[in-house]
């Protein structure tokens, strides 16, 4: 059930069999979440964390006029709110962008797990640091990258993150999001996203159609995005 989560952890560190058994034991139950459902609302007191097993979820904040900014996308294997363990409530909402399956992990079990295995406390600390690194890279995109580079960068990031958990081939990946979803990640309008996707397609870099991303020129796409996977900390080392 948590295979993708283990793939994600093991890409960055060694996880022993004993630690794996302990991680498997913290999951209380699995739940299905329909697409477009706001799964966790901000400022609600929480006593569980949510591990995404299948589908795509996002963290977002919005304004009174309905304008929404997605601040991170989550793929299978990610904890969507590991930070709720210390924060106890969120300053943002969490929504399912596609039909999702999640595993519920009570905070008290994370407490026991991290007390029993201090190494796993550091592994999960690393996890929240990684989310922060992704947020910083998105800040750079939102503040400074051109529209075309923003889209290219997001498509590069997802290629690497989905590949890590076995959800991408060397040619591309399924991404069942709408152009409106992408626009809300990128701080653009859907009309603008459509136009920029056409530009990237015509340059022979990438095609996004019918929920699938087809990487046509990986080198070129990284170049226009100024993408370097360094912020995803892909090296395996003891944490």
């Amino acid at each position, binding site marked *: 059930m948590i295979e993708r989560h283990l793939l994600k952890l093991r890409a960055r560190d060694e996880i022993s069999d004993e630690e794996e058994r302990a991680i498997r034991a913290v999951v209380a139950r699995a739940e299905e979440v329909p697409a477009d459902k706001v799964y966790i609302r901000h400022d609600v007191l929480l006593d569980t964390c949510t591990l995404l097993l299948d589908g795509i979820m996002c963290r977002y904040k919005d304004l009174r006029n309905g304008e929404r900014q997605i601040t991170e996308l989550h793929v299978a294997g990610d904890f969507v709110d590991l930070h709720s363990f210390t924060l106890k409530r969120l300053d943002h909402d969490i929504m399912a962008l596609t039909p999702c399956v999640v595993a519920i992990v009570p905070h008290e079990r994370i407490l026991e797990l991290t007390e029993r295995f201090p190494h796993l406390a550091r592994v999960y600390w690393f996890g929240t640091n990684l989310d922060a690194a992704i947020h910083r890279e998105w800040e750079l995109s939102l503040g400074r990258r*051109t*529209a075309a580079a923003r889209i290219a960068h997001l498509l590069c990031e997802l290629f690497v993150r989905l590949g890590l958990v076995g959800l991408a081939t060397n040619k591309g990946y399924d991404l069942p999001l*709408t*152009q*409106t979803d992408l626009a809300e990640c990128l701080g*653009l*309008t*859907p*009309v*603008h996203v*459509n*136009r920029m996707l*056409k*530009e990237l397609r015509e340059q022979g870099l990438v095609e996004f*159609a019918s929920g699938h991303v087809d990487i046509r020129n990986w080198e070129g796409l990284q170049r226009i995005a100024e993408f370097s996977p360094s912020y995803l900390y892909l090296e395996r080392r003891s944490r």
Partner: protein
Amino acid sequence: MPRYYFHIRNGSGFIRDEEGRELPDEAVARDEALKGIRSIISSEASGGLLDLTGELDIADAQDEVIETLRFDEAFQLRLPGSRTS
């Protein structure tokens, strides 16, 4: 909610909207079209190009064009030597 499509014609050719969006009514669709035009132009403007020659077609679920907006209609234009329009 009805579905609306936003097709664009400008210097770089015709861009079909294959996906469309569900929106409450035509007035909201028009607002979204204006926002879309403005976002494209502001991005181009920051790169040094101000090209208002494009058009955006709003089409309904049957892909019938219900309104065409010229890009310049999305702006209040003030140019040197001209009166405020």
